[in-house]
């Protein structure tokens, strides 16, 4: 796509294309949904196949599964406390879904569903609805005291309350845009430099030598993107647990 017209088309990779022929088109099943399904399959396979042996001394795959499990469990335990157990499956699912979405997107010809703002925003809204419902169920009307911290002078209320409300409402926005922007920026950069390789490679005799430069950049970028994939999944999960902590304990 990119270099066909000798132009840089960095955004074409984000285009949604229906798959599975007419059936897919009629239900709006795109390559994005297919990748989500693939990610889910891989996550479930990792956990189920990894734990298939139920070994006391874990093998490699079981160690991966267990350390992931204990990592997310530790996240819930440390951030939320003992109440975190209830939310652990949700945080685990969220972390793994985002992580596999990010990593799958780095494979050639793959699609990165976390680079779509509607996807990240939907995930963030899930978190937002969850924390609001949990806070309301656990604390009832006291939840609204969250927007005015105790001990603050009453005359500051007209300033503090709007600020707190805006900051609360902006949580799903910041959560979704952070992930979306990171993924889009990374993939656009990869695409741009990949296009440079092709364009420079076609510049006669010296072309292939100059093309090594963007190739080097791309190699480094792929490594960096793997880091970002893990980091953004971690950030998404830890912010979710921090918000859940607020919902459970109200500050």
């Amino acid at each position, binding site marked *: 796509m990119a270099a066909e017209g000798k132009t840089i088309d960095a955004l074409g990779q984000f285009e*949604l294309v229906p798959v599975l022929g007419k059936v897919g088109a009629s239900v709006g099943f795109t390559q*994005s949904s297919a990748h*989500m399904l693939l990610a889910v399959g891989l996550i479930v396979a990792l956990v189920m196949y990894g*734990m298939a042996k139920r*070994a*006391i001394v874990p093998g490699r795959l079981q160690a991966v599964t267990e350390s992931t499990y204990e990592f997310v469990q530790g996240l819930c335990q440390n951030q939320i406390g003992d109440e975190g157990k209830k939310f652990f499956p949700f945080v685990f699912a969220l972390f793994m879904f985002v992580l596999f979405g990010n990593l799958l997107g780095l494979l050639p010809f793959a699609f990165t*569903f976390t680079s779509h703002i*509607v996807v990240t925003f939907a995930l963030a809204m*899930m978190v937002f609805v969850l924390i609001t419902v949990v806070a309301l169920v656990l604390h009832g009307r006291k939840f609204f005291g969250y927007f005015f911290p105790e001990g603050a002078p009453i005359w500051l209320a007209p300033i503090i309350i709007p600020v707190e409300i805006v900051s609360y409402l902006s949580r799903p926005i910041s959560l979704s845009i952070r992930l979306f922007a990171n993924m889009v920026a990374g993939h656009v950069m990869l695409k741009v430099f990949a296009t440079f390789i092709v364009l420079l490679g076609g510049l006669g005799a010296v072309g292939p030598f100059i093309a090594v430069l963007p190739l080097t950049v791309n190699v480094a970028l792929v490594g960096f993107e793997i880091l970002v994939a893990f980091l953004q999944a971690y950030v998404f999960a830890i912010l979710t647990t921090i918000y859940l902590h607020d919902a459970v304990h109200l500050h």
Partner: protein
Amino acid sequence: MPQLDFDNPLLIAQVVWLLIIFGLLYYVLSTYALPRVESVLEERRARIAADLGAAQAAKAEADAAMAAHREATAKARAEAQSAIASAMQQAQAEAAARSEELNRRLAQQIQEAEQRIAAARDAAMGALRQVSTETAESLVAKLAGRADRTPVTAAVDRALAARGQA
């Protein structure tokens, strides 16, 4: 930017599919997959705890056995000490009794020997007096022609007494 093309119905379909697929993931994970991991981890924790408990019990047992052994050793040593002491005491008493007995017998023998010696001397002394008296008498008879027995005997007794011999 295709992500912001909100007129595209595929964008909405993507969200619907996301909800379905993420719901599926959550259901499978929370119902089957994660309890499975938890059960394995729990099993391992239980196993480790049981092994630790067994090890602790074994250690306590070993400690108890060690203490019993030490106690038995101390007891045996004390018994041996007392046995040695009593044996020594008995032996000393026996030795003392035997030496006393020996001393007594020796003293008796000495006394008997002294008596025998005294008797022999007395006998010898008696014989001496008789011999002296007869000799003196015969001397006196030779010299004086006749001898009066009584003064001679008295004179011999005097002479013997003067020598300090009874």
